[in-house]
């Protein structure tokens, strides 16, 4: 039982960063009904910039953090301009395919920056742990959970307490009605990408600072984890993204403990498959799916 609780707590901690990745996907999906498949690669390129500074100039970890997040945002804007703004509004598939192609380009750019395979990434804290009763908490993972919680809180405030957040939510619910109300669509979409990249950059830094290393597979990994977590929670739903991320983290933590490291990713895919078969809309995404269906029926 203690093992079970311990694993669950570990899973929640790691799942918090999956939740941030899923939030990134879901914000842009909500506004555009499109997937930005280059998301993971954008984070990876941003993190490679931070790592590059760390490797060549031994800068402080906070500089690495700021560089990672700032560069992820810049790359996110680049992706939006190229794959989403420049592609016609009704060509949703073209946008997704081009974001997939940009994924390759961003990975190439990152590998040109730092050509070898694995680099050390600075941690926020030295690896350590503390005990509370029978449970053991890793310091870096606790920091990750706190960082994710702060980020979610900030996003919530932004979405619910500002005019910009309201415009974003209105556009997510009904882009046409938002246009009638004079909401600037191009600007709202760009802002959604900036938010996505902010969430992704913070998640990327938190994950890498916990792992204390970065490999060229990070982009692929981040895209997969974020997409799976979003699908679990329900596309376009922010609470769903958080729930999906935590659920994914917990299931992976249990699989890691009871079945072994090689079953960790397998369990994630199994979970996604089970969810898609039993509840295609995800845990909290039912309403959005059915509204889309309604829209189709009306057409």
């Amino acid at each position: 039982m203690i093992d079970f609780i311990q694993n669950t707590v570990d899973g929640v901690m790691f799942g918090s960063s999956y939740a941030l990745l899923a939030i990134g996907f879901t914000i842009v999906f909500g506004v555009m009904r499109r997937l930005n498949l280059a998301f993971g690669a954008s984070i990876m390129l941003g993190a490679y910039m931070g790592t590059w500074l760390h490797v060549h100039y031994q800068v402080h970890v906070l500089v690495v953090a700021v560089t990672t997040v700032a560069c992820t945002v810049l790359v996110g804007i680049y992706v939006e301009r190229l794959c989403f703004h420049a592609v016609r509004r009704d060509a949703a598939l073209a946008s997704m395919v081009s974001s997939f192609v940009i994924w390759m380009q961003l990975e190439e750019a990152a590998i040109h920056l730092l050509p070898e395979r694995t680099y050390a990434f600075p941690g926020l804290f030295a690896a350590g742990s503390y005990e509370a009763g029978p449970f053991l908490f890793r310091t870096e993972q606790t920091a990750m959970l706190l960082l994710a919680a702060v980020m979610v809180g900030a996003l919530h405030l932004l979405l619910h307490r500002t005019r910009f957040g309201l415009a974003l939510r209105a556009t997510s619910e009904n882009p046409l009605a938002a246009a009638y109300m004079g909401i600037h669509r191009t600007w709202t979409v760009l802002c959604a990408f900036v938010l996505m990249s902010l969430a992704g950059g913070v998640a990327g830094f938190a994950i890498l600072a916990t792992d204390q290393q970065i490999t060229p597979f990070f982009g692929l990994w981040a895209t997969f984890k974020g997409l799976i977590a979003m699908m679990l929670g329900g596309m376009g739903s922010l609470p769903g993204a958080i729930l999906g991320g935590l659920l994914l983290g917990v299931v992976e933590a249990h699989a890691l403990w009871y079945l072994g490291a090689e079953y960790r990713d397998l369990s994630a895919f199994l979970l996604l498959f089970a969810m898609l078969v039993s509840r295609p809309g995800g845990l909290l995404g039912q309403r959005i799916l059915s509204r889309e269906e309604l829209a189709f029926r009306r057409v």
Partner: protein
Amino acid sequence: MLEVRRLHVSYGGLRAVHGVSLEVRTGEIVCIIGPNGAGKTSILNAVSGIVAPEAGDVLFEGQPIGGLPAHAVVARGIVQVPEGRLIFGTLSVEENLRVAAHRRGPFVLRRRDRPGLRRLFPALADKLDGPAAGLSGGEAQMLALARGLEAEPRLLLLDEPSLGLSPKMAEEVFALIRRLRDQGLTMLLVEQNVRQTLALADRGYVLESGRITLQGTASDLLSDHRLVSNYLGVSAGASLDPASGR
């Protein structure tokens, strides 16, 4: 105030509006009436920037606005209350109103007193915190109107405001439009409810298959033989004629 000249609107090769010219003067209520699919909504959408005109000019206070994006048109003071209301069901009533006010004030939202809202829309004022999806059809139409007004329009485009409402609710909507006119708001109104619309409007245009077939003051149109027989039906026409009175 608004001048539309030889406007053409097409959707993927299908032409919906063929060279329509119309004018709205300050303080007027002008209506466009006509059967379903005549292109009434297309004209409004071309004015508000939701669709780009294929050809022709749209002038607002002398400035060309044809082809401007919707947000730029709203910024100039033209606001459309769309057909089917299109309220944001997942947002609260209050948030629906704030969406329209997005151009105004600071970055962080502050809840303002809404005496105007309470006066014009008493039913809404008590439901500000509830989800907009919980409103009845009539209340939703009132919210759509209130939301449009929140954007502080100088010209309000109303697309089928009485559609799908009970006769009693429709009467309330028309009464509200009358009050707005008395406050000096200029309106371009698209309606299928011909008689009530003409009773309200100053002037009207009859649109058929994307062309204006008839125009004039509302009272001229009401007594026009063709319009009466086509849209009001013979019996309706008879009851309109005081000489035939029963």
